[in-house]
């Protein structure tokens, strides 16, 4: 459980040069972002830079624009204006969701989004496909590398012994882990986690924190939206506070916690 996926065989797709180039570079660059739904401004002039190797938490009261922010990065919502770049060069506002996913941005939804009618293993298998290879899909063939990868992922998310179970029968926490496992398959450069520990028991929350910590890698950025402050404190290097679609504060948990404005709009309540 304690090793980073970035170092397992599934990162074979990246060259050494790329790996060193990515260190401490910008993964996601958001500049002057504006998102409106009708007359409602969900995000106003937001600028955030997320670096590789970093675990960023985004906190803020309901309706602050946290989920919208993830929607924009993953292509679900198109902004009115502003730049959203991957690696400071790829414009994420111009390509669709599957393309963004294939570029290495993985997203976990707030509600566990797994395929309940399929077994745990089939869920991972489906993720391994990444929608590629029409005939490979029809013939259900997997390469040895893919098989190894499936087993590795199952080990990381601790569901090795549940592989044949219907995903719908898993506990809430296991479902969340399964979904994270489905993201890991793509060895994503950027992982977006929307409230990963909502509804979890303390024990499950601890395990999830461990899991997320094990995903850290110098070539990966992790973004977590979460309300659980203890959890945020445990995993995040840097915290951004959103309020009414704007960036209110940014910095270490300690710094943010003591910011009077943050206390007033969010933590104080």
């Amino acid at each position, binding site marked *: 459980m304690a090793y980073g996926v970035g170092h397992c065989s599934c990162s074979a797709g990246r060259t050494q040069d790329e790996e060193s180039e990515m260190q401490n570079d910008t993964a996601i660059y958001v500049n002057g972002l504006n998102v409106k739904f009708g007359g409602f401004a969900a995000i106003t002039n937001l600028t955030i830079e997320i670096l590789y190797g970093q675990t960023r938490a985004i906190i803020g009261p309901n309706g602050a624009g946290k989920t919208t922010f993830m929607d924009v990065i*993953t292509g*679900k919502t198109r902004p009115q204006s502003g730049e959203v770049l991957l690696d400071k060069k790829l414009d994420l506002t111009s390509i669709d*969701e*599957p393309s963004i*996913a*294939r570029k290495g941005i*993985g*997203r976990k*939804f707030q509600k566990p*989004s*797994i*395929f*309940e*009618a*399929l077994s745990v293993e*089939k869920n991972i*298998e*489906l*993720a391994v*496909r*990444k*929608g*590629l290879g*029409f005939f*490979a*899909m*029809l*013939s*259900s063939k997997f390469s040895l590398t893919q098989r190894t990868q499936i087993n590795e992922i199952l080990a990381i998310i601790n569901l090795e012994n549940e592989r044949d*179970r*219907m995903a719908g*029968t898993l506990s809430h926490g296991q479902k969340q882990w399964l979904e994270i496992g*489905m993201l890991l398959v*793509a060895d994503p450069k950027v992982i977006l986690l929307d409230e990963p520990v909502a509804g979890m028991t303390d024990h499950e929350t601890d395990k999830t924190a461990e899991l997320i910590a094990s995903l850290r890698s110098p070539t990966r950025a992790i973004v977590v939206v979460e309300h659980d402050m203890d959890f945020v404190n445990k995993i995040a290097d840097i915290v951004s506070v959103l309020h009414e679609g704007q960036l209110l504060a940014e910095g270490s948990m300690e710094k943010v916690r003591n910011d009077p404005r943050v206390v007033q709009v969010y933590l104080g309540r």
Partner: protein
Amino acid sequence: MSFKQTLIKRQEFILVTVLLLIAAYMPLSNRFLDVVNPFHMSLFSINLIGQIICFAILAMALDFVWGFAGILSLGHGVFFGIGGYVMGFYLINASFAETKVLPDFMLYMGWKDFPLFFQIFKYLSVSIAMAVLLTFAIAGIFGFATFRSRINGVYFSIITQALTYALMLMLFINDLGLGGNNGMTGFRSLAGYKLADISTQIGLASVSCIVLAILYLLLRYIVKSSFGQAMIGVRDDEARLRFLGFRTDRIKLFAWCLSAAVAAIAGLLYVPQVGIINPNIVSPMLSVEIAVWVAIGGRGTLIGAIIGATLVNGLKFWLSAKAPSVWPFILAAVTLLITIGLSNGLWGGTLQLLSRSHARRGV
């Protein structure tokens, strides 16, 4: 292995065996058993089985796309109709070649020659290929436009229903030259076999059974494959699949076109067995009924669709002869009871009962 497990594990084998046995039994019983023998099958009942099998193929086509990919089409009659009409075109060609007399509807329209358009369908092989191609084209254009625009759920269903209605109204137009409201009839022969011959009709019914078995195996293979899992993914959480990098619109398009082609094949087989094709084949009623057959049998199982179509149509033929006025009420009652009591349909419910000890369901 207990009987229950055998039934679950070997469903496909059992179904295909049963279909092939029926295909073999029909000609043998008609030919060699005496008319008074209770196991003798009359031409009437064989013809009925043949028609029901065509509906079973049609229902299976819908279940493939509805039960697995979650796309509820209330317009599969369109593709059934395309197959049916193309077969009609071929059959009037064949009649004309024999009698040199133009079909009635052409005479009414004052045509002197057999029109060039219909001559495309002079050969059976070309006609079958044309039916499949035409279905791919129409289903492809419609599917491409709707799936790309992300039209889903009930909106999609309503559009397909409207499409059926529009096509029916169009076919009712006499000036269209496709037979208008009377449709096309007076078919004489198919690939050189006289349709009036008992052997031809029995042959058609047997071929229908075999085609159902083959198409079932094909669709079963696909739903069991990784592609089938992707279809289930589309059904249960399309957004999740998209964020995993899947182009879900393409998965849906492929499933949709394949399903439409299977429906067209059902239409091709159906028309020579009923001996007529008219716009009622694309009536919205029939298209909704297909969904009812699938729901009764149990969607997402393929076998359920076959069972549903067979039971409902069997009942319908039997009851609409005995008590035509009560039939709609019985169908409604059966549908209601199954919707309330057996949400997975007859076959889905049976599987659930059988595998209660196992923690698995569906595929």
